[in-house]
């Protein structure tokens, strides 16, 4: 939660109240399915010495409607979600699934090998693997005997 508070956002007189509301919901699990950050898509970040991996939930988004671009230090994900499964003449009795477009950018903490970035999409989970550039990988420093 700390990082969220540190994020820059315009001042909002109700901000503290909403934060409290969010913390309550999180603590008592009122809406556990909501993103902890409120951003779409929600992301989990994994790291190893050699790479960074982002895992995102994109409910109902088709692979063809996703656009991923990466440069030295930014990864941008754009997408659209269309609800086109409804048969003609069908009437909605309940609608909870949303429709629309989204953009999310990630500032990468180190340079990556853009040519080797790989993305995999299955069952609405997007996995992007970003191999660290040589310069960002840990290097063994040998100690010379004096």
């Amino acid at each position, binding site marked *: *939660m*700390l*990082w969220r508070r540190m994020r820059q956002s315009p001042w909002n007189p109700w901000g503290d109240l909403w934060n409290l509301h969010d913390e309550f919901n999180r603590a008592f*699990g009122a809406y*556990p*399915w909501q*993103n*902890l*950050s409120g*951003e779409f898509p*929600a*992301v*989990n*970040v*994994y*790291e*190893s010495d050699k*790479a960074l*991996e982002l*895992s995102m*939930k*994109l*409910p*109902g988004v*088709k692979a063809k409607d996703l656009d991923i671009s990466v440069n030295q230090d930014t990864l941008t994900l754009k997408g659209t979600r269309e*609800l086109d*499964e*409804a*048969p003609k*003449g*069908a*009437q*909605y*009795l*309940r*609608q*909870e*699934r*949303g429709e629309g477009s989204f953009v999310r950018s990630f500032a990468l903490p180190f340079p990556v090998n853009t040519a080797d970035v790989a993305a995999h999409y*299955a*069952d*609405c*989970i997007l*996995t992007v693997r970003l191999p660290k550039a040589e310069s960002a990988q840990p290097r063994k420093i040998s100690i010379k005997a004096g």
Partner: protein
Amino acid sequence: MSTEVRTVDNKDANVQRAERHETVVLSPAVDILETEKDVLLLADMPGVNEKNVDIDLHGNSLTIKGHRDSPVPAGMELIRTEYQPDYRYERQFTMGDTIDREKITAVMKDGVLRLTLPKVKELAPRRIEVKAC
């Protein structure tokens, strides 16, 4: 450039929770649509494939469940989280008598569960002819 020294103590509480592999139960978002012949239920269950989905019918109640295989990539460490990686979906619905329970069909494709609940034949709209006497 400054260096952030990370220790176990200052890890985000959510990361710590994720590392304990607590499974959270999520309620999938659903759309329910009605056509002349059937009722259609669409549920978003990202991460769930056709092998991991269960549908239970019990009297008037219909329960959909879905789980996901272990999500952690090998040899990697979670450093930031916006959703609990270990989760499963579950939601229960009550059906009316107009649904033909024997003919319910389900398709799980690309993370979306599609249930077709046909209406009982007798209740499908029918034109009643008026005979002259």
